[in-house]
């Protein structure tokens, strides 16, 4: 198929798709007039029931907690899948970064300038703090394990950005990250199973809900699950980024 034919084929298909879209949209309630009763019930009950003022977190980690277990394991599987796809193939070896006789070393870009290095290293601490804060405040604010975990992981990526790839690797040993990721993923599942052991439904919120809505000690399992999700997400993202960056250290033996 030539690219011109392909484009015509696409134009016809896209026109059909758009027509179906418009037909479907015509049947939707107008923008701003969502009549869904489910969301309204949760809005009315969530804060009273869970003592979490972040209703989205309450939905994620309690009302639809089972979905979130699946979501977390999608990320877990993706990180595992990446390390399988990007494993060291036969004929590849890791380049020694300080091997100056290496012809590739001469082609390596010059060292990162201090205009990037210093701000990046200065930002590592605050970034990690914000990530930790977000991961542990799912019950109060628009935050939670997923958001906090990604920001925690970017603290590690800032270390890489400052030109310290070897430090990045030393600070994120794969064995430790694997363990943290497993603890995070399993923690969520085990908190749910603990409810079953006590005779409640899976992921039932059996911990004390605290007195003040939105306080760190409130909302029972929601805050705890969010924290474990934060661990899992941070470890998974550092693993994923480490896998991708580690590719630059590989080279074909024939090269």
């Amino acid at each position: 198929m030539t690219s011109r034919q392909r484009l015509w084929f696409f134009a016809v298909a896209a026109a059909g798709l758009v027509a179906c879209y418009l037909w479907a949209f015509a049947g939707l309630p107008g923008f701003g007039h969502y009549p869904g009763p489910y969301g309204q019930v949760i809005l009315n009950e969530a804060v009273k029931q869970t003592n979490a003022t972040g209703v989205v977190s309450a939905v994620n980690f309690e009302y639809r907690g089972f979905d979130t277990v699946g979501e977390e394991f999608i990320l877990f599987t993706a990180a595992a899948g990446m390390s399988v796809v990007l494993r060291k193939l036969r004929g590849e070896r890791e380049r020694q970064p300080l091997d100056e006789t290496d012809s590739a070393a001469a082609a390596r870009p010059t060292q990162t300038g201090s205009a990037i290095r210093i701000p990046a290293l200065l930002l590592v601490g605050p970034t990690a703090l914000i990530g930790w804060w977000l991961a542990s405040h799912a019950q109060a604010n628009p935050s939670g394990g997923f958001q906090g975990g990604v920001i925690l992981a970017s603290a590690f990526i800032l270390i890489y950005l400052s030109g310290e790839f070897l430090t990045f690797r030393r600070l994120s040993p794969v064995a430790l990250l694997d363990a943290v990721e497993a603890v995070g993923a399993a923690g969520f599942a085990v908190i749910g199973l603990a409810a079953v052991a006590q005779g409640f439904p899976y992921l039932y919120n059996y911990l004390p809900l605290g007195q003040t809505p939105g306080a760190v000690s409130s909302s029972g399992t929601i805050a705890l699950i969010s924290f474990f999700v934060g661990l899992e997400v941070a470890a998974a993202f550092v693993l994923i980024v480490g896998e991708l960056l580690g590719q630059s250290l590989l080279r074909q033996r024939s090269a």
Partner: protein
Amino acid sequence: MQIVPFLVVAWVVVAGLYGIVTSRDLIHQIICLIVVQSSTYVLLLGVGYVTGGVAPYFYDIPLHTKAVDPVVQALALTDVVVEAAVTALLLSFAIQAHKRFGTLDPHELAEFKG
């Protein structure tokens, strides 16, 4: 005016699909897939919006303030996570394709067949 957010959704989907069809580079294709997927955020948040509603967080506003639907917001969060996972996997496939065949052009890659 009520249909504008939904027209944006259709536009973003078709623009992303056009990019995937015409792309000559796997990385570019993956980015186009992200564009297609981001239409779902617009759709979810557009569907759940309630005129005059605030974000569903009652930390410093009184309970029973009119708020937008929290369920679609939670779904959008799930969506973001799945997108990140899919993108990471696709990028690693692109790396392997480049290692094996020395090209990222899907047209050239199609000639290798397995």
